[in-house]
Protein backbone atom coordinates (compact mmCIF):
# COMPACT_ATOMS: atom_id res chain seq x y z
CA UNK A 1 0.00 0.00 0.00
CA UNK A 2 1.70 3.14 -1.16
CA UNK A 3 1.09 6.71 -0.26
CA UNK A 4 -0.42 8.56 -3.18
CA UNK A 5 -0.33 12.36 -3.43
CA UNK A 6 -3.08 12.26 -6.03
CA UNK A 7 -5.47 10.85 -3.47
CA UNK A 8 -4.37 13.57 -1.07
CA UNK A 9 -5.18 16.27 -3.60
CA UNK A 10 -8.51 14.61 -4.30
CA UNK A 11 -9.60 14.46 -0.69
CA UNK A 12 -8.24 17.81 0.53
CA UNK A 13 -11.06 20.07 -0.74
CA UNK A 14 -13.80 18.13 1.02
CA UNK A 15 -11.66 17.88 4.15
CA UNK A 16 -11.19 21.62 4.13
CA UNK A 17 -14.96 22.09 4.19
CA UNK A 18 -15.11 19.52 6.96
CA UNK A 19 -12.48 21.36 8.96
CA UNK A 20 -14.63 24.50 8.91
CA UNK A 21 -17.57 22.51 10.29
CA UNK A 22 -15.32 20.97 12.96
CA UNK A 23 -14.11 24.37 14.13
CA UNK A 24 -17.64 25.77 14.16
CA UNK A 25 -18.97 22.80 16.11
CA UNK A 26 -16.16 23.00 18.66
CA UNK A 27 -16.56 26.76 19.18
CA UNK A 28 -20.36 26.80 19.42
CA UNK A 29 -20.33 23.66 21.56
CA UNK A 30 -17.73 25.19 23.89
CA UNK A 31 -19.69 28.44 24.20
CA UNK A 32 -22.77 26.41 25.15
CA UNK A 33 -20.74 24.33 27.60
CA UNK A 34 -19.33 27.46 29.27
CA UNK A 35 -22.76 29.08 29.69
CA UNK A 36 -24.65 25.92 30.72
CA UNK A 37 -21.76 24.96 32.99
CA UNK A 38 -21.97 28.27 34.86
CA UNK A 39 -25.70 27.78 35.31
CA UNK A 40 -25.18 24.22 36.51
CA UNK A 41 -22.44 25.31 38.91
CA UNK A 42 -24.74 27.93 40.46
CA UNK A 43 -27.51 25.32 40.83
CA UNK A 44 -25.09 22.84 42.39
CA UNK A 45 -23.96 25.46 44.92
CA UNK A 46 -27.55 26.42 45.73
CA UNK A 47 -28.41 26.81 49.40
CA UNK A 48 -31.57 24.83 48.72
CA UNK A 49 -30.71 21.23 49.48
CA UNK A 50 -33.16 19.74 46.97
CA UNK A 51 -32.01 21.97 44.10
CA UNK A 52 -28.36 21.23 44.85
CA UNK A 53 -28.83 17.46 45.06
CA UNK A 54 -31.08 17.23 41.99
CA UNK A 55 -28.72 19.23 39.82
CA UNK A 56 -25.78 17.21 41.11
CA UNK A 57 -27.38 13.92 40.10
CA UNK A 58 -28.58 15.19 36.74
CA UNK A 59 -25.05 16.31 35.99
CA UNK A 60 -23.68 12.93 37.14
CA UNK A 61 -26.14 11.11 34.85
CA UNK A 62 -24.85 13.09 31.88
CA UNK A 63 -21.23 12.76 32.94
CA UNK A 64 -21.33 9.01 33.47
CA UNK A 65 -22.86 8.08 30.12
CA UNK A 66 -21.15 8.20 26.71
CA UNK A 67 -21.42 11.28 24.54
CA UNK A 68 -22.01 9.06 21.51
CA UNK A 69 -25.15 7.55 23.03
CA UNK A 70 -26.36 10.99 24.08
CA UNK A 71 -25.89 12.17 20.50
CA UNK A 72 -27.88 9.19 19.21
CA UNK A 73 -30.53 10.03 21.77
CA UNK A 74 -30.79 13.64 20.56
CA UNK A 75 -30.68 12.63 16.93
CA UNK A 76 -32.99 9.60 16.84
CA UNK A 77 -35.30 10.02 19.81
CA UNK A 78 -36.20 13.71 19.74
CA UNK A 79 -37.77 13.55 16.23
CA UNK A 80 -40.10 10.81 17.52
CA UNK A 81 -41.16 13.19 20.27
CA UNK A 82 -41.82 15.89 17.69
CA UNK A 83 -38.62 17.90 18.07
CA UNK A 84 -36.65 18.15 14.85
CA UNK A 85 -33.02 19.25 14.99
CA UNK A 86 -30.52 19.46 12.19
CA UNK A 87 -27.60 17.05 12.66
CA UNK A 88 -25.29 19.98 13.36
CA UNK A 89 -27.64 21.46 15.98
CA UNK A 90 -28.10 18.08 17.66
CA UNK A 91 -24.35 17.57 17.71
CA UNK A 92 -23.57 20.99 19.13
CA UNK A 93 -26.27 20.68 21.79
CA UNK A 94 -24.97 17.24 22.72
CA UNK A 95 -21.40 18.50 23.00
CA UNK A 96 -22.51 21.54 24.99
CA UNK A 97 -24.62 19.60 27.47
CA UNK A 98 -22.06 16.85 27.93
CA UNK A 99 -19.17 19.20 28.60
CA UNK A 100 -21.19 21.62 30.71
CA UNK A 101 -20.98 18.96 33.43
CA UNK A 102 -17.21 19.24 33.24
CA UNK A 103 -17.03 23.03 33.08
CA UNK A 104 -19.46 23.34 36.00
CA UNK A 105 -16.88 21.60 38.16
CA UNK A 106 -14.26 24.12 37.04
CA UNK A 107 -16.47 27.05 38.06
CA UNK A 108 -17.38 25.42 41.35
CA UNK A 109 -13.78 24.63 42.25
CA UNK A 110 -12.71 28.13 41.22
CA UNK A 111 -15.19 29.83 43.53
CA UNK A 112 -14.72 27.40 46.40
CA UNK A 113 -10.94 27.77 46.25
CA UNK A 114 -11.12 31.44 47.16
CA UNK A 115 -10.00 31.45 50.79
CA UNK A 116 -12.75 31.81 53.35
CA UNK A 117 -10.96 34.78 54.87
CA UNK A 118 -11.68 36.77 51.72
CA UNK A 119 -15.42 36.39 52.20
CA UNK A 120 -15.06 37.37 55.83
CA UNK A 121 -12.88 40.35 54.97
CA UNK A 122 -15.45 41.69 52.50
CA UNK A 123 -18.09 41.27 55.18
CA UNK A 124 -15.93 43.16 57.63
CA UNK A 125 -15.55 45.96 55.07
CA UNK A 126 -19.35 46.06 54.83
CA UNK A 127 -19.36 45.15 51.12
CA UNK A 128 -22.71 44.10 49.72
CA UNK A 129 -23.15 40.85 47.75
CA UNK A 130 -22.46 42.56 44.41
CA UNK A 131 -19.34 44.31 45.66
CA UNK A 132 -18.08 41.11 47.28
CA UNK A 133 -18.41 39.16 44.04
CA UNK A 134 -17.29 41.92 41.69
CA UNK A 135 -14.28 43.26 43.58
CA UNK A 136 -13.13 40.44 45.84
CA UNK A 137 -14.22 36.95 44.86
CA UNK A 138 -14.39 36.91 41.05
CA UNK A 139 -11.04 38.64 40.43
CA UNK A 140 -9.44 35.84 42.44
CA UNK A 141 -11.65 33.00 41.16
CA UNK A 142 -11.56 33.65 37.42
CA UNK A 143 -7.84 33.50 36.53
CA UNK A 144 -7.35 29.91 37.80
CA UNK A 145 -10.46 28.86 35.83
CA UNK A 146 -9.07 29.99 32.47
CA UNK A 147 -6.54 27.20 31.79
CA UNK A 148 -8.93 24.30 32.54
CA UNK A 149 -11.67 25.95 30.50
CA UNK A 150 -9.22 26.32 27.59
CA UNK A 151 -8.28 22.66 28.00
CA UNK A 152 -11.92 21.62 27.67
CA UNK A 153 -12.12 23.56 24.41
CA UNK A 154 -9.26 21.38 23.12
CA UNK A 155 -10.97 18.25 24.42
CA UNK A 156 -14.20 19.20 22.70
CA UNK A 157 -12.33 19.86 19.49
CA UNK A 158 -11.02 16.30 19.65
CA UNK A 159 -14.49 14.92 20.38
CA UNK A 160 -16.13 16.53 17.34
CA UNK A 161 -15.43 13.49 15.09
CA UNK A 162 -18.19 11.75 17.06
CA UNK A 163 -20.65 14.05 15.31
CA UNK A 164 -19.96 12.13 12.11
CA UNK A 165 -21.92 9.26 13.68
CA UNK A 166 -25.04 11.43 13.43
CA UNK A 167 -24.27 12.36 9.81
CA UNK A 168 -22.56 15.71 10.41
CA UNK A 169 -19.96 16.06 7.67
CA UNK A 170 -17.07 17.44 9.70
CA UNK A 171 -13.35 16.78 9.16
CA UNK A 172 -13.44 13.10 10.04
CA UNK A 173 -16.85 12.56 8.45
CA UNK A 174 -15.65 14.05 5.18
CA UNK A 175 -12.60 11.80 5.14
CA UNK A 176 -14.71 8.79 6.05
CA UNK A 177 -17.21 9.41 3.28
CA UNK A 178 -14.34 9.70 0.82
CA UNK A 179 -12.82 6.45 2.12
CA UNK A 180 -16.06 4.55 1.94
CA UNK A 181 -16.69 5.55 -1.66
CA UNK A 182 -13.17 5.07 -2.98
CA UNK A 183 -11.87 2.35 -0.63
CA UNK A 184 -8.79 4.44 -0.01
CA UNK A 185 -8.23 4.63 3.72
CA UNK A 186 -4.54 5.31 4.17
CA UNK A 187 -4.33 8.91 3.01
CA UNK A 188 -7.60 10.34 4.35
CA UNK A 189 -7.25 8.77 7.79
CA UNK A 190 -3.59 9.78 8.08
CA UNK A 191 -4.47 13.32 7.06
CA UNK A 192 -7.24 13.53 9.67
CA UNK A 193 -4.78 12.36 12.32
CA UNK A 194 -2.23 14.92 11.14
CA UNK A 195 -4.77 17.74 11.18
CA UNK A 196 -5.66 16.93 14.76
CA UNK A 197 -2.02 16.70 15.82
CA UNK A 198 -1.16 19.97 14.10
CA UNK A 199 -3.94 21.79 15.89
CA UNK A 200 -4.08 20.15 19.28
CA UNK A 201 -0.38 19.94 20.09
CA UNK A 202 0.23 23.70 19.69
CA UNK A 203 -3.10 24.33 21.43
CA UNK A 204 -2.02 22.16 24.34
CA UNK A 205 1.24 24.10 24.66
CA UNK A 206 -0.68 27.37 24.52
CA UNK A 207 -2.92 26.08 27.32
CA UNK A 208 0.17 25.16 29.32
CA UNK A 209 1.48 28.70 28.88
CA UNK A 210 -1.87 30.01 30.10
CA UNK A 211 -1.53 27.80 33.14
CA UNK A 212 1.86 29.28 33.97
CA UNK A 213 0.60 32.81 33.39
CA UNK A 214 -2.43 32.36 35.62
CA UNK A 215 -0.70 30.44 38.35
CA UNK A 216 -2.44 31.43 41.57
CA UNK A 217 -0.33 34.04 43.27
CA UNK A 218 0.36 33.52 46.90
CA UNK A 219 -1.83 36.14 48.52
CA UNK A 220 -0.78 35.15 51.98
CA UNK A 221 -4.41 34.67 52.95
CA UNK A 222 -5.69 31.17 53.48
Amino acid sequence: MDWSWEVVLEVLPSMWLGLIVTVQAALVGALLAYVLGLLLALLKMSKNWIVAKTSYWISECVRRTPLLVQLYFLFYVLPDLGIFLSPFAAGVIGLGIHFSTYTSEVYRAGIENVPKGQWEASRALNYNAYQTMRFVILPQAIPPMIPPLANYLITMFKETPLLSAITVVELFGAANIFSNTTYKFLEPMTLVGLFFLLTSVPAAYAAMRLEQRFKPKNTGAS
Partner: protein
Amino acid sequence: METVFKYFQDSWSWSLEYYPILIQGTITTIELTLASALLALIISFVVGLSRFSRLRLVRVIAVIYLEFFRGTSAIVQMFFMFYVLPLLGITFPPLVAGILACGLNLGSYGSEVVRSALLSVGRGQHEAALALNYSSYQRFRYVLIPQAIPVMIPTFGNLLIELLKLTAVASLITISDLTFMAQIIRSQTALTLEPFFVILVMYFIISSVLVWFTKVAERKFAKGRDTISGEGV
Protein backbone atom coordinates in the same frame (compact mmCIF):
# COMPACT_ATOMS: atom_id res chain seq x y z
CA MET B 1 -54.60 1.50 33.18
CA GLU B 2 -55.42 0.14 29.77
CA THR B 3 -53.31 2.75 28.04
CA VAL B 4 -50.39 1.94 30.28
CA PHE B 5 -50.80 -1.72 29.45
CA LYS B 6 -51.05 -0.92 25.77
CA TYR B 7 -47.91 1.20 25.96
CA PHE B 8 -45.96 -1.64 27.48
CA GLN B 9 -47.33 -4.08 24.96
CA ASP B 10 -46.46 -1.81 22.05
CA SER B 11 -43.19 -0.37 23.19
CA TRP B 12 -41.60 -2.89 25.48
CA SER B 13 -42.52 -6.24 23.91
CA TRP B 14 -39.20 -5.98 22.04
CA SER B 15 -37.42 -6.41 25.32
CA LEU B 16 -38.52 -10.05 25.54
CA GLU B 17 -37.05 -10.77 22.17
CA TYR B 18 -33.98 -8.61 22.43
CA TYR B 19 -32.85 -8.82 26.02
CA PRO B 20 -30.30 -11.58 25.25
CA ILE B 21 -28.35 -9.33 22.90
CA LEU B 22 -28.47 -6.48 25.39
CA ILE B 23 -26.93 -8.74 28.02
CA GLN B 24 -24.34 -9.85 25.51
CA GLY B 25 -23.62 -6.21 24.68
CA THR B 26 -23.23 -5.39 28.36
CA ILE B 27 -20.73 -8.21 28.75
CA THR B 28 -18.77 -7.02 25.72
CA THR B 29 -18.71 -3.46 27.05
CA ILE B 30 -17.45 -4.63 30.44
CA GLU B 31 -14.82 -6.89 28.86
CA LEU B 32 -13.64 -4.12 26.60
CA THR B 33 -13.47 -1.68 29.53
CA LEU B 34 -11.56 -4.01 31.84
CA ALA B 35 -9.11 -5.25 29.19
CA SER B 36 -8.28 -1.75 27.98
CA ALA B 37 -8.09 -0.46 31.56
CA LEU B 38 -5.44 -3.06 32.31
CA LEU B 39 -3.54 -2.16 29.15
CA ALA B 40 -3.84 1.57 29.91
CA LEU B 41 -2.61 1.05 33.47
CA ILE B 42 0.50 -0.80 32.32
CA ILE B 43 1.22 1.82 29.66
CA SER B 44 0.65 4.64 32.15
CA PHE B 45 3.34 3.34 34.47
CA VAL B 46 5.80 2.39 31.73
CA VAL B 47 5.48 5.72 29.92
CA GLY B 48 5.10 7.79 33.09
CA LEU B 49 8.30 6.33 34.55
CA SER B 50 10.10 6.66 31.21
CA ARG B 51 9.72 10.41 31.55
CA PHE B 52 12.19 10.22 34.47
CA SER B 53 14.72 8.17 32.51
CA ARG B 54 18.33 9.26 32.37
CA LEU B 55 18.40 8.37 28.68
CA ARG B 56 17.27 11.23 26.50
CA LEU B 57 16.03 8.87 23.79
CA VAL B 58 13.63 7.10 26.18
CA ARG B 59 12.22 10.42 27.34
CA VAL B 60 11.76 11.62 23.76
CA ILE B 61 9.95 8.43 22.73
CA ALA B 62 7.66 8.75 25.75
CA VAL B 63 6.78 12.35 24.83
CA ILE B 64 6.14 11.41 21.20
CA TYR B 65 3.81 8.62 22.29
CA LEU B 66 2.05 10.98 24.68
CA GLU B 67 1.53 13.77 22.19
CA PHE B 68 0.49 11.41 19.42
CA PHE B 69 -2.21 9.59 21.36
CA ARG B 70 -3.37 12.61 23.32
CA GLY B 71 -3.29 14.90 20.34
CA THR B 72 -5.41 12.89 17.93
CA SER B 73 -8.99 11.83 18.39
CA ALA B 74 -9.73 8.39 19.82
CA ILE B 75 -12.18 7.69 17.01
CA VAL B 76 -9.51 8.51 14.43
CA GLN B 77 -7.08 6.15 16.14
CA MET B 78 -9.69 3.41 16.13
CA PHE B 79 -10.46 3.82 12.44
CA PHE B 80 -6.76 3.93 11.70
CA MET B 81 -6.24 0.64 13.50
CA PHE B 82 -9.25 -1.02 11.99
CA TYR B 83 -9.07 0.20 8.38
CA VAL B 84 -5.54 1.42 7.69
CA LEU B 85 -3.28 -1.06 9.50
CA PRO B 86 -4.76 -4.04 7.59
CA LEU B 87 -3.66 -2.28 4.38
CA LEU B 88 -0.14 -2.28 5.79
CA GLY B 89 -0.42 -5.99 6.51
CA ILE B 90 -1.30 -5.77 10.21
CA THR B 91 -4.74 -7.20 10.89
CA PHE B 92 -6.50 -7.26 14.24
CA PRO B 93 -9.88 -8.75 15.08
CA PRO B 94 -12.27 -5.86 15.89
CA LEU B 95 -12.24 -6.50 19.63
CA VAL B 96 -8.43 -6.44 19.78
CA ALA B 97 -8.34 -3.25 17.70
CA GLY B 98 -10.84 -1.74 20.13
CA ILE B 99 -8.85 -2.76 23.20
CA LEU B 100 -5.60 -1.48 21.68
CA ALA B 101 -7.12 1.84 20.63
CA CYS B 102 -8.87 2.46 23.97
CA GLY B 103 -5.87 1.29 25.99
CA LEU B 104 -3.30 3.29 24.03
CA ASN B 105 -5.47 6.39 24.12
CA LEU B 106 -6.20 6.34 27.84
CA GLY B 107 -2.62 5.23 28.57
CA SER B 108 -1.39 8.59 27.31
CA TYR B 109 -3.59 10.47 29.77
CA GLY B 110 -2.69 7.98 32.52
CA SER B 111 1.04 8.45 31.99
CA GLU B 112 0.69 12.14 32.78
CA VAL B 113 -1.17 11.23 35.97
CA VAL B 114 1.68 8.93 37.01
CA ARG B 115 4.29 11.56 36.19
CA SER B 116 2.61 14.42 38.02
CA ALA B 117 1.84 12.21 41.04
CA LEU B 118 5.51 11.25 41.27
CA LEU B 119 6.50 14.90 40.99
CA SER B 120 4.07 15.78 43.76
CA VAL B 121 5.92 13.60 46.26
CA GLY B 122 7.86 15.96 48.49
CA ARG B 123 11.34 16.92 47.39
CA GLY B 124 12.71 15.78 50.72
CA GLN B 125 11.66 12.24 49.90
CA HIS B 126 13.70 12.26 46.68
CA GLU B 127 16.67 13.62 48.59
CA ALA B 128 16.28 11.22 51.49
CA ALA B 129 16.29 8.26 49.10
CA LEU B 130 19.47 9.61 47.53
CA ALA B 131 21.04 10.17 50.93
CA LEU B 132 20.32 6.55 51.82
CA ASN B 133 22.20 5.58 48.68
CA TYR B 134 19.17 3.88 47.14
CA SER B 135 19.48 2.84 43.51
CA SER B 136 16.93 4.45 41.20
CA TYR B 137 14.95 1.18 41.20
CA GLN B 138 14.83 1.20 44.99
CA ARG B 139 14.06 4.91 45.07
CA PHE B 140 10.97 4.51 42.88
CA ARG B 141 9.90 1.10 44.17
CA TYR B 142 10.14 1.73 47.91
CA VAL B 143 9.96 5.50 48.34
CA LEU B 144 8.30 7.40 45.53
CA ILE B 145 5.70 5.09 43.98
CA PRO B 146 4.06 3.98 47.26
CA GLN B 147 3.56 7.61 48.19
CA ALA B 148 2.38 8.63 44.72
CA ILE B 149 -0.32 5.96 44.39
CA PRO B 150 -2.87 7.59 46.74
CA VAL B 151 -2.48 10.79 44.70
CA MET B 152 -3.10 8.90 41.45
CA ILE B 153 -6.23 7.01 42.43
CA PRO B 154 -8.90 9.75 42.20
CA THR B 155 -7.68 10.84 38.76
CA PHE B 156 -7.38 7.25 37.61
CA GLY B 157 -11.00 6.81 38.72
CA ASN B 158 -12.07 9.69 36.48
CA LEU B 159 -10.08 8.22 33.61
CA LEU B 160 -11.80 4.86 34.13
CA ILE B 161 -15.16 6.56 33.53
CA GLU B 162 -13.72 8.25 30.44
CA LEU B 163 -12.57 4.83 29.26
CA LEU B 164 -16.01 3.29 29.72
CA LYS B 165 -17.50 6.13 27.70
CA LEU B 166 -14.83 5.68 25.05
CA THR B 167 -15.81 2.03 24.55
CA ALA B 168 -19.13 3.24 23.11
CA VAL B 169 -17.14 4.65 20.20
CA ALA B 170 -15.83 1.15 19.51
CA SER B 171 -19.32 0.26 18.27
CA LEU B 172 -18.40 2.25 15.16
CA ILE B 173 -15.73 -0.32 14.27
CA THR B 174 -18.29 -3.13 14.41
CA ILE B 175 -17.63 -4.25 18.00
CA SER B 176 -20.98 -5.51 19.29
CA ASP B 177 -21.07 -3.62 22.58
CA LEU B 178 -24.12 -2.01 24.22
CA THR B 179 -24.28 0.90 21.80
CA PHE B 180 -24.00 -1.41 18.81
CA MET B 181 -26.83 -3.58 20.16
CA ALA B 182 -29.03 -0.53 20.69
CA GLN B 183 -28.46 0.41 17.05
CA ILE B 184 -29.46 -3.12 15.99
CA ILE B 185 -32.64 -2.91 18.02
CA ARG B 186 -33.38 0.52 16.60
CA SER B 187 -32.98 -0.64 13.02
CA GLN B 188 -34.99 -3.82 13.51
CA THR B 189 -37.88 -2.47 15.57
CA ALA B 190 -37.90 1.22 14.57
CA LEU B 191 -38.09 2.03 18.28
CA THR B 192 -35.79 4.81 19.45
CA LEU B 193 -36.56 6.03 22.96
CA GLU B 194 -36.66 2.64 24.64
CA PRO B 195 -33.41 0.99 23.49
CA PHE B 196 -31.35 4.14 23.95
CA PHE B 197 -32.90 4.82 27.34
CA VAL B 198 -32.12 1.28 28.46
CA ILE B 199 -28.48 1.48 27.44
CA LEU B 200 -28.05 4.93 29.00
CA VAL B 201 -29.24 3.38 32.27
CA MET B 202 -26.87 0.44 31.77
CA TYR B 203 -23.92 2.77 31.21
CA PHE B 204 -24.89 4.79 34.25
CA ILE B 205 -25.01 1.65 36.41
CA ILE B 206 -21.64 0.39 35.16
CA SER B 207 -19.94 3.74 35.71
CA SER B 208 -21.50 4.10 39.14
CA VAL B 209 -20.01 0.74 40.07
CA LEU B 210 -16.64 2.00 38.81
CA VAL B 211 -17.01 5.21 40.85
CA TRP B 212 -17.80 3.13 43.94
CA PHE B 213 -14.80 0.91 43.26
CA THR B 214 -12.56 3.99 43.02
CA LYS B 215 -13.86 5.29 46.35
CA VAL B 216 -13.10 1.94 48.01
CA ALA B 217 -9.58 1.91 46.54
CA GLU B 218 -9.08 5.50 47.64
CA ARG B 219 -9.99 4.66 51.22
CA LYS B 220 -7.81 1.56 51.21
CA PHE B 221 -4.74 3.43 50.01
CA ALA B 222 -5.42 6.50 52.12
CA LYS B 223 -4.32 4.58 55.22
CA GLY B 224 -1.03 5.99 56.43
CA ARG B 225 -1.29 8.90 54.01
CA ASP B 226 -0.63 11.32 56.85
CA THR B 227 3.00 10.22 56.91
CA ILE B 228 3.58 11.91 53.58
CA SER B 229 5.46 15.16 53.75
CA GLY B 230 5.10 17.55 50.88
CA GLU B 231 2.26 19.21 49.06
CA GLY B 232 -0.27 16.96 47.36
CA VAL B 233 -1.82 17.78 44.04
